[in-house]
């Protein structure tokens, strides 16, 4: 059978042509000649630079990489990367990217989106891409504000936020993007920040390796309309107190040495942090990103409260499930395989004739 084996986990770019041995691209090769036009100091610059620095490590032919975006500040991203790219319309990038990835297994397809683009106008496409597990890498730049339209609250803005469109405070309850992705049965879910180059780069590499939809939420600072939104977790000192660095096989813990608290699960299944010294070792939650059941990953995602008193960062979930695009191509391969040759005029003629013909003359 020519159909691909859906059981073996393969790299996200397994079918993408690779550079010849010894050939290596650089950050510069992934830098287009278009001058980036984000506001000075925007977190998007840092993310762009990290992405351009990470791409050569994949060893892929540049012409087989595609970036697709929607609308918003983050969605200008494809213009600045020297690959194939499409700056599309608001919210629709996951659908467009699905069409690209499904018809072409030889492409590494990346979606760049924002909190408004992915979670508001494009929410439907996002959850369906995630449940289908299309072989896409979705980078959600979350700045918790509408930047391009000059500062309205977004679906991730905290309740009560004062903006131009919410002078008395937003009454909207926000989404937690990681919880949403896990709820949509995403197979790879991670979170990082714009300025932590080393961490973001490792997460992006893991996302690229993952076969299926990899969802990466990137906390991104909007200097103009929501400056300091993530200072609680990006500021070095505060980070020590609040960041929960998720590491596969390690206890889920927060706080500096000597003042560490670990996550424990009580008999009723509830999770809470307790000082490390007081924790019952049998009840400590050990992170397992490969767990089939997303329940624990979801529980961890809920630890991220409005005050950002603790913020999990890293890979929440990384499991293998057959991808949509592989499945679609496998069915076509099965059908054409039954034919035994590449479809031609005779095969089409057979279809056109159907089962019930008659002849005149």
């Amino acid at each position, binding site marked *: 059978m020519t159909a691909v084996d859906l059981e073996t986990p393969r790299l996200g770019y397994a079918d993408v042509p690779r550079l010849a041995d010894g050939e290596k691209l650089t950050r510069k090769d992934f830098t287009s000649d278009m001058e980036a036009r984000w506001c000075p100091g925007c977190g998007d610059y840092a993310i762009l630079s990290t992405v351009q620095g990470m791409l050569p490590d994949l060893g892929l032919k540049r012409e087989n990489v595609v970036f697709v975006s929607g609308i918003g500040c983050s969605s200008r991203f494809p213009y600045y990367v020297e690959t194939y790219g499409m700056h599309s*319309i608001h919210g629709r990038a996951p659908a*467009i990217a699905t*069409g690209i*990835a499904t018809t072409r297994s030889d492409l590494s397809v990346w979606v760049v989106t924002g909190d408004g683009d992915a979670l508001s106008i494009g929410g439907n496409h996002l959850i369906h891409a995630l449940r289908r597990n299309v072989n896409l890498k979705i980078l959600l730049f979350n700045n918790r504000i509408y930047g391009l339209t000059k500062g309205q609250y977004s679906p991730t803005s905290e309740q009560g936020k004062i903006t131009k469109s919410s002078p008395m405070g937003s009454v909207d309850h926000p989404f937690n993007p990681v919880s949403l992705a896990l709820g949509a049965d995403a197979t790879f879910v991670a979170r990082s920040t714009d300025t932590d180059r080393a961490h973001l780069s490792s997460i992006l590499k893991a996302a690229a390796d993952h076969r299926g939809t990899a969802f990466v939420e990137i906390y991104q600072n909007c200097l103009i309309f929501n400056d300091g939104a993530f200072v609680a977790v990006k500021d070095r000192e505060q980070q020590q107190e609040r960041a929960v660095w998720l590491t596969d096989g390690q206890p889920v813990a927060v706080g500096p040495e000597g003042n560490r608290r670990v996550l424990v699960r009580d008999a009723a299944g509830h999770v809470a942090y307790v000082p490390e010294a007081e924790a019952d070792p049998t009840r400590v939650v050990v992170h397992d990103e490969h767990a089939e059941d997303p329940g624990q990953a979801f529980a961890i995602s809920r630890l991220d409260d409005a005050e950002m008193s603790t913020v999990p960062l890293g890979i929440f979930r990384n499991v293998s499930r057959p991808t949509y695009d592989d499945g679609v191509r496998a069915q076509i391969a099965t*059908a054409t395989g*039954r034919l035994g040759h590449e479809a031609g005029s005779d*095969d089409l003629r057979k279809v056109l*004739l159907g089962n*019930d013909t008659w002849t005149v003359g």
Partner: protein
Amino acid sequence: MSDGSLTSHGPSTDHGSRLRMTSKSVQQVDRVVIRFAGDSGDGMQLTGDRFTSETAAIGNDLATLPNYPAEIRAPQGTIPGVSSFQLHFADHHVLTPGDAPDVLVAMNPAALKANMADMPRGSTIIVNTDEFTKRNLAKVGYAESPVADGSLESWHVHALPLTSMTVQALAEFDALTKKDKERAKNMFALGLLSWLYNRSTTGTEAFLHKKFGANPDILQANLKALRSGWNYGETTEDFAVSYVVNPAEMSPGTYRNVTGNAATAYGMAAGALRTGRPLALGSYPITPASDILHVLSGLKQLGVTTMQAEDEIAGIGMALGAAFAGAIALTTTSGPGLALKSETIGLAISLELPLVIVDVQRGGPSTGLPTKTEQADLLQAMFGRNGEAPCVVLAPQSPVDCFDMSVESIRLATKYMTPVILLTDGYLANGSEPWLVPQVDDLPDLTVHLATKLNGTDAAGNKVFHPFLRDPETLARPWAVPGTPELEHRIGGIEKADVTGAISYDPDNHDHMTRLRAAKIDGIAKDIPALEVEDPSGEADVLVLGWGSTYGPVAAAVRAVRNGGGKVARAHLRHLNPFPANTGEVLKRYSHVIVPEMNSGQLALLLRAKYLVDIDSYTSVRGLPFSTVELADVLGRAVGVTTAEKETTR
């Protein structure tokens, strides 16, 4: 039904080997219109389909029109729940499914009541009296049974207990419940009609074997019901004669019967094959377009990719992504779906990527009449986008023409790098007619040449790729797909500079690009056939101009008017944007131009605006195609002749 009669005691046609003999007298007629009507659960669509198939096999020309409710099972026995299937077959070229049936098969009182207005006096009505109970009669407001109270005395009524005769015929099937047996009554009716019109039942028997092969009892019961219906016709005194309709003269070749939706799916598969690129469909189910998705989903062996999306917007989004990636991209929908896709069509126009959008028009606005036909999306297809966003608009004229126009839509989309909207409608989509199956190698060669090389130099003199450098002839830009070395480029919905494709907010560039995009579409007029006028007299002052699915009724009405001595010219538009180059010249040649449309005058509006000519707009939005009689009356009055009340034959 007139013409000479003949008596036969043997096989009545050349196809006798496939027919059992009838010992009754056989009358030859040139055309028949039959309507099968019943509850939506009575299997009338299937019955009609089977009768059509047998009729096609005999070599009659034919056209069909299913008419069914939007609800899957509307309340039983009510008028909204009536489902019908009309078939017009003849020994000559058939243009429409026919106006007035010669025969109505009414499986219950609702079916009778819903269709009675269409039945001319003297026509034949077969009713299933088992269903004419007090309760069922009351449901549709009959105080007395119309079969018994004399109100039908001007019609030939055959009052037959079809259900109980079926149950009786199946008495030996102990394993089946009464309900199972009753369900076979449509096969009994089909058997009877097959006898009445000397149709073979071989094909239907083979069909039943295939459908019920896994369930021998049901299979045998249906076969028995079918044969019992045939035998009943043969033995009962209720039917004195049966009828034959001789084969029509048709071009030699191999034929099949095809619906517009199937022809659309096949045309897209064929067009894509001729380009050498794979076909990719992104689609969200919607009535009456879903059958295109169904058919294409079954053509994976031809390399066809189908993606059932989460919504209409994703459907076209997936298709657009596939287009960017180098596939022949298609999305299929109906009116409300076209509205949802409009932003993405605008993007495709801005990106200048090939994309085919099929809109199977239905009654609107909003949800409107999902299962009924209309032509009211023309202006939406023309203008339903933000900004100046022209694209190609095409409309097939018949179910079979859906194939050719699908191929044409792929030709224009790929040659000119543009979205193409193909406007079919519910009438074409579900209607069917015989199709001379084309030889694939006779279809146009649509080979696509993707860009492979750098095509320009930048200011510094370096060789570069310009994604918006145009072919001087077609004004199309190159199609460079991911995976092509050196041609990496970015495109988007923001206005781009001519040639380089770089983002540009320059006022003059935007004006230039807006005009270029329009000129590209307008220029296609040079690449499509001229508008042909058919005027046998050469002296007509009146022109009737149709578009899309009005072709059949308009042509049939013109035939009727000419038979009555009227002089009328006829032309038909299949290309709506751009119009054929000579359209204005044709319109100005006639003192009176009549445009019948199933909308409120949308084509008339376009023609008046573009060509500054007066148009006599004749419109109807009843969810049904025009009747021949209605249009013949309109045209007849315009040319001063009276047409026969009944549809003329040839």
